[in-house]
Every structure is written in C-alpha cells, then in structure tokens.
C-alpha cells in the first residue's frame, strides 16, 4: 500500500509525508522526523487510540496537529481511502476517542465510516522496545476502550430506551398492584363488619334508651297520679253533687211547667208548638252538652283552656316552635356524619402540616388574593366541629324527633279544639234560638198563664245553662284525671314501670341516672358509628377506585399500541381485559414480577459492561505503573472504586492472565521467552508467570521480561503470531518501530531475513521496519548530483525508504 500524508503542524510536531509501497519496506530517518507519529496517525485513521493511557501525549499531539490529509492507495478490495482529519473536533480526553467525528472519510471517492475503514485496513504498530507487560497493558486498555466506547455510544442510550419502555409498562401495572387491591378488599370487608357491629351496638343502646325514656315518663305520670289524683277526685265529687242538686231543681221546674200547661187548657195548636219547641230545646241542649264534653276532653288533651283566644295563641306559638324544630333537624340529625367527615379532613390536614405544608394554599378564592391555606382550613374545620358538637348531640336528634312528633300531635289536638269551639258556638247559638222561640211562644199565650210559663221557662233555661257549665267542669276534670296516667290507672302504670325496669335490668330508683348514662353512651356510639360509616364508605370508594384502575390497566395492556411488544412476548396480556378479576390480578402480578426482574437484569447487564470497562482500565493503570496514582485520573474521568467495579477486578485479571497464557503458550513464544519451557501459567493476582524447564519450576513477574535479547525474541514472536491473521481484513500494515534497538548486526540480519521470507509467505501484509538513521547529515555529500538516492531522500526529507533486504 502507498501512503501519503499532508500534515499541517505547529510547534514541534512532525509527520513524514510518504510511506512507499515497498514490501517489506524499511524506513530509516533522523530522530524527530515523524516516523512514529505517522504510524500513530494511521492508527487514529482506523479508529484506534494509540495514546490510550497517555493523556498528556495525546493532548500534545492533538493540539499540535492542525489538520491532516491522508491517502492510502494500492489497496486490496478498494482503490484508495482518503481522510481529511480535523483534530480540533477530537475529544480532549483520549479515552473518548473516537466518540466524535474524525473528519471526513472517503473510500474510492465516496463518503465512508470508520467501520468501513476497519473492514478494509488494520494497522499494527509493534514497538520492538515494548515488553510483554507493556503489550498486555495495551490490550487491557484497548478492551476497556471497546467497552466504554460502546457504552457511551450505544449502551447507555439503548439501555435508557429499554428502561423507559419497561418503566412505562410497570407504571401502568403499578396502578393495579394486586397486593394493594387485596389489602383494599380486606380493609373494605373489615370496614363492613365493623359498620354492622357499630350499627348493632347503636341499635341496642337506642332500644335501652327508648325503654328507659318510657320508664322515666311512666315514673313522672305515676308521681302526678299519686300526687294530684285524690284532690281532683274530691273536687269532682263536689261538682257532681252540685249538678245532682241542680238536676233535682230542674225536674221540679219541669213538673211545674207541665202542671201550668194542663191547668190553663191550652189550645191544641199552642200545645203542639210548645211540645215541639221543648223537644227541640231538649235535643239541642243534649247535643250541646255532648259537644261541650268533647271540647273539654280535647282541650284537656291539648293542654289548653277551651277558649278561642287561648287556642289561637297556643296554635301560633306551637307553629313557630314546630318550625324551629324542623329547621334544626338537618344539623342535628346529620351532625354525627358531618363530624366524621370533618374529623377525617382534619386528620388529612394534620398529616399535611406534619409534612411542612402549613402555608400551602389549598383553595384559591377568585375574588381575593388570599386563599385557604392548610392551617387556616384546619382551624375552620375545628371551629365547625366544635359548633356542631355543641348543638347536635346525638340524643338530641331523637329528642328532637320526639318533640316534633309531640308538637305535631298537639297541633292536631289544638286544631280539633278550635274546630269543636266553633261547633259548640254554633250549637249554643242554635240552642239559644230554640229557647228564645219557646219563651216567645209561651209569652204569646193569653193572660197570666203566658207570663207564668215564661218565668218558669226562663228559670229552667238558667238552670240548664248552669247545669251545662257544671257538666263542662266535671267533664274537664274527668279528662284531666284520665290524662294524668295517659289513660292508665296507677296500678297499670306501676306494673308497666316494673316491667320496663326489669327489661333494661335497672333498679327502679335509678332509671333517670341510667337514662342519662345511656344517652351519653348513645351519643358516643352514634358518633363512632358515623365515623365507621365514613370509613366504610371511604374503603369501599378506595376499593372501587382500584377496581377501576385494574380495568383501566387491563384495557391499556390489552390494547395500547406502545405495549404491543408485551402482548407478543406474553400472550396472556392480550386477553387481560377478558379475564376475571382474580385472574387479572394473578396475571398482573406475574407480569410485574417478570418485568421487574427483567428490568433489573437489563440494568445489571449494562452496569456490568460499564464496571468491567472500569475494572479493565484500573487494571491497565496498575500494569502501566504500579507506583502511579491512578485515583486522580479516575476521579478526573468520573470513575470510582465502586463495589461493582471491585467485584470485576478478579475476573478481568483472570481474563488477561488467560490471554497472556494463550499468548505465551505458543511454540515461538516459549522458545523466545522461556527457552522452550512448558506448563506456562499466569497468576492473575500477582501477575507473575510460572513455567517448567527440564523438570525445574520457574516463576518471574511479567514486568521482568524486558532484556534486549528477550525483546528481540519477543518481537519476532509477536510478528509470528500475526501470521494467524485474526484481523480478517484485506490490508494490514505491520510497522516494527525502533527496529533493531537492542540488536547486534547478526540478529538484525536474522530478523530481516525472517521478515523478507514472511512477506513472501503472506504477501497481503505490508511489513515496514522503522529505525533511526545511521548516517549523520554531515556525512552526506553536499553535491546533489553525486548523492545516492538514499542520501538524496535523507537530504530532502530527513528519512529514506527502501525495500528491506536480507
């Protein structure tokens, strides 16, 4: 291959301009002329990094090379490759090369890539002064570079893409965590049981409160009956006696009226009229008395005097009272539930305050710049709870209901009294009319008979009126006596009281305190019940939310375009939406476990690549200079002695030991380095080599394989190893630098002979030996015409190239 280089350099960097197509070639030149730099530049052109682990040298080379054009022609499988290199775009960190653009590459005139170049060309730069450990170090650096380069260029990005996809699927699955749903089911079930138990406790206590209330009411009635009944009975007897005496007088009067009518021989017509009117008066009087009796009973029941004004006032007051009671009902009856809601909200706000969110605005007010912060809202809830607690005891709710029922009942009774008052008024009016007509008829009778009868009738009317009033008082008193015990006698009341006390198992003397205590318990239980009810509703709501989430997850997994890969990989996922809930949960759990496991594996795999790369670099640094402090270098590059890296230390040492063992366990190498010894082993920890020779064991650190003779043998062995052609590329340049540095003339001749013959065996390799010029400039003939071609080249460009001769 023919190589041309046009390098624009500054400061001290120089690079030779041509390597002719001479196989095998020899390139001899003055020191500093740029022979080695040319080989390194060619390595860079193929994407390799010859400065691996030599950061300072790299930065110097990069800075001094402004631009370079390289052309290689006479190739196999291609006519030529051209590079226009732009070092300014190369990374400062040698380990980053070739992460960014080298410059422009053209293969046979078409734009190509580094990969295209690597499929065509390989540059081997064998420095004959290099020791085995130096070469191994290069191999380790190269391996580290391969891993890091791949990780940076592809691994990290692809790993993130994989992780994002897995994360998306896992996020969807996580919204339907089977564990959470099972827990929610359990919580909801327990909440239902707790609610039933709380309801039962409330009902039991409520029944006891009702019984005790009834017992207390009966006790009150008993007290009234026992305290008031005797006086009232006595009064009743007096009234009845007066009425009886009045009835006696009336009967006498009736007889007088009848006698008067007979004595005076009334006409037939007059007699008929009087009889009819008297019957009418009598009937009306009877009707009025019954109405008055009804009225008195109704008035007693309604606890009002049977007067229209009083009844109207009582109705007005009761209607207002009923209205207030009805208005108070919502706040009282819903008090426990409201308290439960407020209590729940306050607990949430307490959590928020504990989390440092006191000043966080929860509700913005459109009309004001201020809003409701967590703390302000909590205080508002606290005040409201206090207010409700003060006005809405649980037992109040029941008492309120009773009061409303009682007020309605009394209102009905008052309405009946009002109605009866009107009826009585009408009946009175009717009676008065009938009486007036009777008196008028009597008055119209002739002479003294009429006057006498008139007086008798008026007198009887007065007695009737007085009798009705007495009867009214008696009726009223009887009604009141009846109502003292709710229509029951003292004996009946006492028996009922005893039964109730036995039923609630309370001493009859302690019913009132027992009622108070049970009411307090009922209050507490009702509040508890409301809270349990709220919890049950909340748990049911949470469960439903989760079930909705499962349905959503199932739908998403079954249909989402983004998750088609999951359905292909896991066919059951495609049918997820059709499965029963338990089957869905089992599938989701299985999917979640698998994706989590695979996500971990993916992460660990990529982390392992990175860790192996770092472990390799650390090993290379250690090999390069056991005394150097590589920690600073690693820190500079963001590497660390992580556990992950440490655990790969031994494997990478084993790996390089294996590489070295294979390398050394080669006939050529064994002859070159171990005098033909065998059973070669490499200790990965100590990096020492052991072998057997003539039955004797030998052991030596790798670093000690560095004598001149060994270097020669080693170099020859390395070239021989290249015969295996592991590169599999059509064009190879094998440059042996510092050729002959440790060799005497005889060995140099022997090695040259080997290389010439090798070139014949492997014509596709271009072997190039590079060595310092043995001719001093002053020894070159000044006259160009008399110069040999070699001197002419030396004179013109500081080096000469020619075919290597045996």
């Amino acid at each position: 291959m023919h190589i041309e280089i046009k390098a624009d350099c500054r400061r001290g960097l120089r690079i030779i301009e041509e390597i002719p197509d001479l196989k095998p070639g020899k390139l001899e030149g003055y020191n500093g002329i740029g022979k080695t730099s040319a080989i390194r530049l060619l390595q860079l052109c193929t994407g390799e990094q010859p400065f691996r682990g030599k950061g300072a040298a790299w930065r110097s080379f990069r800075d001094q090379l402004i631009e370079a054009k390289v052309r290689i022609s006479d190739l196999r499988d291609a006519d030529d490759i051209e590079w226009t290199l732009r070092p300014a775009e190369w990374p400062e960190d040698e380990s980053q090369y070739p992460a960014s653009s080298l410059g422009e590459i053209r293969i046979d005139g078409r734009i190509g890539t580094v990969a295209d170049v690597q499929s065509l060309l390989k540059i081997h730069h064998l420095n004959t002064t290099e020791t085995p450990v130096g070469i191994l170090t290069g191999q380790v650096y190269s391996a580290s570079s391969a891993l890091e380069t791949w990780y940076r260029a592809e691994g990290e990005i692809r790993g993130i893409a994989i992780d994002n996809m897995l994360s998306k699927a896992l996020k969807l699955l996580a919204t339907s965590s089977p564990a959470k749903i099972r827990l929610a089911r359990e919580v909801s079930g327990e909440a239902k049981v707790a609610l039933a138990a709380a309801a039962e406790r409330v009902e039991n206590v409520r029944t006891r409160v009702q019984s005790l209330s009834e017992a207390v009411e009966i006790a009150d009635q008993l007290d009234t009956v026992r305290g008031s009944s005797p006086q009232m009975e006595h009064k009743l007897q007096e009234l009845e006696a007066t009425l009886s005496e009045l009835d006696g007088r009336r009967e006498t009067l009736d007889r007088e009226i009848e006698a008067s009518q007979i004595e005076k021989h009334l006409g037939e017509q007059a007699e008929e009229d009087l009889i009819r009117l008297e019957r009418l008066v009598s009937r009306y009087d009877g009707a009025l008395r019954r109405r008055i009796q009804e009225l008195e009973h109704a008035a007693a029941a309604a606890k009002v005097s049977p007067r229209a004004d009083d009844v109207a006032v009582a109705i007005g007051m009761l209607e207002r009272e009923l209205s207030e009671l009805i208005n108070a009902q919502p706040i009282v009856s819903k008090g426990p539930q409201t308290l439960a809601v407020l209590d729940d909200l306050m607990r949430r706000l307490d959590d928020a305050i504990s989390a440092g969110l006191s000043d966080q605005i929860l509700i913005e007010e459109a009309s004001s710049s201020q809003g409701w912060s967590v703390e302000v809202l909590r205080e508002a809830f606290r005040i409201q709870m206090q207010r409700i607690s003060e006005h809405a005891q649980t037992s109040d709710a029941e008492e309120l209901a009773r009061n409303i029922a009682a007020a309605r009942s009394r209102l009905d009774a008052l309405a009946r009294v009002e109605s009866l008052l009107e009826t009585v008024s009408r009946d009175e009016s009717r009676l008065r009319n009938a009486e007036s007509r009777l008196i008028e008829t009597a008055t119209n009778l002739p002479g003294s008979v009429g006057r006498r009868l008139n007086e008798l009738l008026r007198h009887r009317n007065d007695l009737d009126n007085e009798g009705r009033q007495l009867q009214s008082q008696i009726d009223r008193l009887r009604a009141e006596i009846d109502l003292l015990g709710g229509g029951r006698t003292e004996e009946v009341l006492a028996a009922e009281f005893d039964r109730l006390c036995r039923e609630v198992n309370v001493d009859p003397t302690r019913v009132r305190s027992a009622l108070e205590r049970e009411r307090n318990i009922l209050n507490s239980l009702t509040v508890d019940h409301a809270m349990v009810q709220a919890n049950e509703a909340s748990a049911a709501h949470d469960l439903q939310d989760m079930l909705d989430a499962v349905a959503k997850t199932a739908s998403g997994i079954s249909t989402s375009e983004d998750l088609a890969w999951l359905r292909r990989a896991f066919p059951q996922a495609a049918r997820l939406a059709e499965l029963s809930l338990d089957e869905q949960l089992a599938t989701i759990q299985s999917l979640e476990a698998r994706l989590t496991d695979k996500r971990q594996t993916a992460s660990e795999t990529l982390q392992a690549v990175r860790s192996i790369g770092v472990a390799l670099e650390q090993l290379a640094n250690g090999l390069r200079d056991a005394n150097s402090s590589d920690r600073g270098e690693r820190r500079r590059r963001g590497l660390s002695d992580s556990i992950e890296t440490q655990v790969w230390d031994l494997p990478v040492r084993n790996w390089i030991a294996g590489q070295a063992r294979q390398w050394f366990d080669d006939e050529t190498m064994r002859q070159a380095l171990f005098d033909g010894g065998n059973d070669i082993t490499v200790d990965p920890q100590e990096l020492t080599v052991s072998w057997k020779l003539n039955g004797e064991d030998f052991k030596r650190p790798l670093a000690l394989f560095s004598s001149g003779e060994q270097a020669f043998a080693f170099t020859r062995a390395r070239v021989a190893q290249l015969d295996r052609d592991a590169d599999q590329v059509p064009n190879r340049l094998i440059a042996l630098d510092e050729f002959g540095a440790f060799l005497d003339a005889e060995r140099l001749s022997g090695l040259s002979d080997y290389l010439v013959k090798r070139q014949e065996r492997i014509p596709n390799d271009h072997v190039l030996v590079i060595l310092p010029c043995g001719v001093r400039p002053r020894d070159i003939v000044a006259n160009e015409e008399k110069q040999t071609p070699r001197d002419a080249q030396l004179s013109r460009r500081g080096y000469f190239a020619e075919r290597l001769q045996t």
Partner: protein
Amino acid sequence: MGIDRHSAQRMLDIVREVCASAAVADSEHAALPQMQPRPDLNFLEDISGNDFDVSAVLERFISDAHRD
C-alpha cells in the same frame, strides 16, 4: 458518530470472555462471597445489534421463548 459493528462485536467478545473468567474465578474461590450478578449475554447481544429495535429486543427479552 455511532458505534461500528466491529467495535460492538469486540465489546461482546470481551464481556463474554471476562464472564467466562468470572465463572472460573467463582469455581476457584467458592468460599468467597457470591459475585455480582452476571450480565445477560443474550440480552447484551440483542441490545448491541446492528438494527436496534427496542420493541423487538424487549419482546425477545421478556418472552418465555427467550434464549435463557
């Protein structure tokens, strides 16, 4: 600049060889604590493939029929 396939293959070869060495290290140092989890070489091969398709890689990776 993307990675070339030759470099990706070299990465894979090195990881495989180091993992093989790790297996040797494990067998020789059985008393030592368990090594770091091994990379999934099939997955690594998939993810470093020439025509990287995240869905296709994931499908193989998650599938029961995955080569593990």
